[in-house]
């Protein structure tokens, strides 16, 4: 008996990639259509991050000269475990908030999330997601795409930014790494790049093993007058640790019934 029923995952992938399941031959038991079959029909590689890697330019964005302020930069690599096709930006946002809650820096204490956003005029602005400290990555992702969810950064005189440490989601632009300009008023920007597949070493039962893992670059640009290099490096390490704990982002479907 051939299976005509398609699993929810198969149906979702077919919808996302515009694949018609009607004529599709499946490679699974009894001709069942597998997710990989759908991706193959869509011309996608079976593992999504290979697609990302193919699209990524090698160059990184460099801040314009003459910004008039000394900045320092550093970067690390975060091991994200097995490959995943979900965005790493919201994950990095949660990681940053958690790291700041543990160790507040320059009055950023993990309650509000500041993000760099590209305006319609091509300029970069800073927007704030208020009271984001308890959100999980899926919730952050939803609020980031909701135009009403972000508040304009307070720019009245005397009002410091709601968070002096902002996130730059370079991964969303398909970049491996980016060194963004440090906007006025911010003490640091943490940027997260698109994950790529790399051979890595994992430990199982205390034994090292070779595995294919996803690796993402996490960088920080900071004003050393407000955040010392030591503190910036510590924040970077904390963000990496939180990111590796979170591993991959939560499910983009709705989270009800909490």
């Amino acid at each position, binding site marked *: 008996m051939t299976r005509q029923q398609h*699993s929810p*995952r198969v149906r979702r992938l077919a919808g996302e990639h515009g694949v018609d399941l009607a004529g599709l031959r499946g490679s699974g038991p009894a001709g069942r259509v*597998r*997710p990989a079959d759908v991706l193959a029909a869509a011309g996608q590689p079976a593992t999504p991050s290979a697609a990302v890697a193919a699209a990524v330019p090698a160059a990184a964005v460099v801040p314009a000269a003459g910004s008039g302020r000394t900045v320092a930069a550093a970067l690390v690599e975060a091991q994200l475990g097995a490959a995943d096709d979900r965005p790493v930006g919201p994950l990095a946002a949660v990681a940053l908030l958690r790291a700041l809650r543990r160790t507040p820096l320059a009055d950023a204490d993990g309650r509000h999330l500041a993000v760099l956003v590209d305006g319609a005029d091509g300029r970069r602005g800073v927007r704030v997601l208020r009271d984001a400290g308890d959100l999980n990555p899926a919730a952050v992702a939803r609020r980031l795409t909701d135009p009403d969810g972000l508040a304009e950064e307070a720019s009245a005189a005397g009002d410091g930014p709601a968070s002096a440490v902002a996130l730059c989601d370079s991964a969303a632009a398909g970049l491996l790494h980016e060194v963004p300009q440090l906007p006025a008023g911010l003490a640091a920007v943490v940027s997260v790049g698109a994950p790529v597949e790399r051979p890595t070493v994992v430990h199982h039962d205390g034994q090292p093993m070779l595995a294919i893992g996803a690796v993402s670059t996490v960088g920080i640009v900071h004003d050393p007058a407000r955040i010392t290099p030591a503190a910036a490096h510590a924040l970077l390490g904390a963000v990496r640790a939180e990111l590796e704990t979170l591993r991959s982002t939560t*499910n983009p*479907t709705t*989270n009800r019934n909490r």
Partner: protein
Amino acid sequence: MAQLSYREAVARGIAQEMDRDERVVLVGEDVAGAGGVFKTTAGLLDRFGPRRVVDTPISEQAILGAAMGAAMTGLRPVAEIMFSDFFAVCWDIVVNQIAKTRYMTNGQVSLPLVIKSGNGGSLRFGAQHSQSVENWAMAVPGLKVVSPSTPTDVVGLMAAAVRSDDPVLFFEHKGLYSGRAEVPDGEIVDTLGTAKIRRPGRDATVVALGLMVPRALRAADELAGRGIDVEVIDVRSLVPLDVTTILDSVHRTGRLFTVEENPRLLGWGAEIASIAVDEAFWDLDGPVQRITTPHIPLPSADSLEDLVIPSVESIGQTIEKALQS
């Protein structure tokens, strides 16, 4: 690093916390002079003295009531219920008093207490000394529930439980007491509400607790030899539940199995399956399956007990069959 048995790790975790905080006290039947019927509290009386390590009569209600009253008034007690089956004897104190009092008093009362108990079967102790009762606790709002599967986790989760200001039920697995493993030196403090991926994999997510964790890992090794690569998650904490780790994994693998030692109905795996089908529906590439003991009391004969509790073979066969259909 040192090689420690699970039971030694229990004593080490309690000692670590008693050393650190004068308010931590230990109370239970045979915990002091005898070092515990399972030797999980050996050495603590000598180290901390009879004022802090207390032997009690067989009075489960009185023991847990005393722990509650002491926790309300400045102490941080660790109370033992010898066999988790005995929770039934004092369940009023656990679910009507300890679980509810903070809520009913709108936060006036804090109950920073830990109840440790020997849980689970496989030791031929029969139906009244072998139950997995963590689900009884999971079902009642107001109780945190953990069940470690490794000696390191025992130390770390005991520390987290003692340091938590909420009531925590700490389910030790009797069948794991003699297992030994390397445990790092120094202070170990874990986090409640976190699951751990013990073995990463691609083809299926297998969530297990307690004794079922090492069995699931051995099943995973055998399946790997047949080309099936499963991810094994040690859920460790039922309340709070680390849904994120589990659903992240399901997103990657598309298949979910739970391995539960409890009798079938309303085991913790049913809740996880329900959450997955609700929140990860579009990630699922096949039915969610629970691998459990059937819905019976545990028989005492070794051959029968081994037959009904999920075994390495039954776990592997169920997963393989499901993935190939």
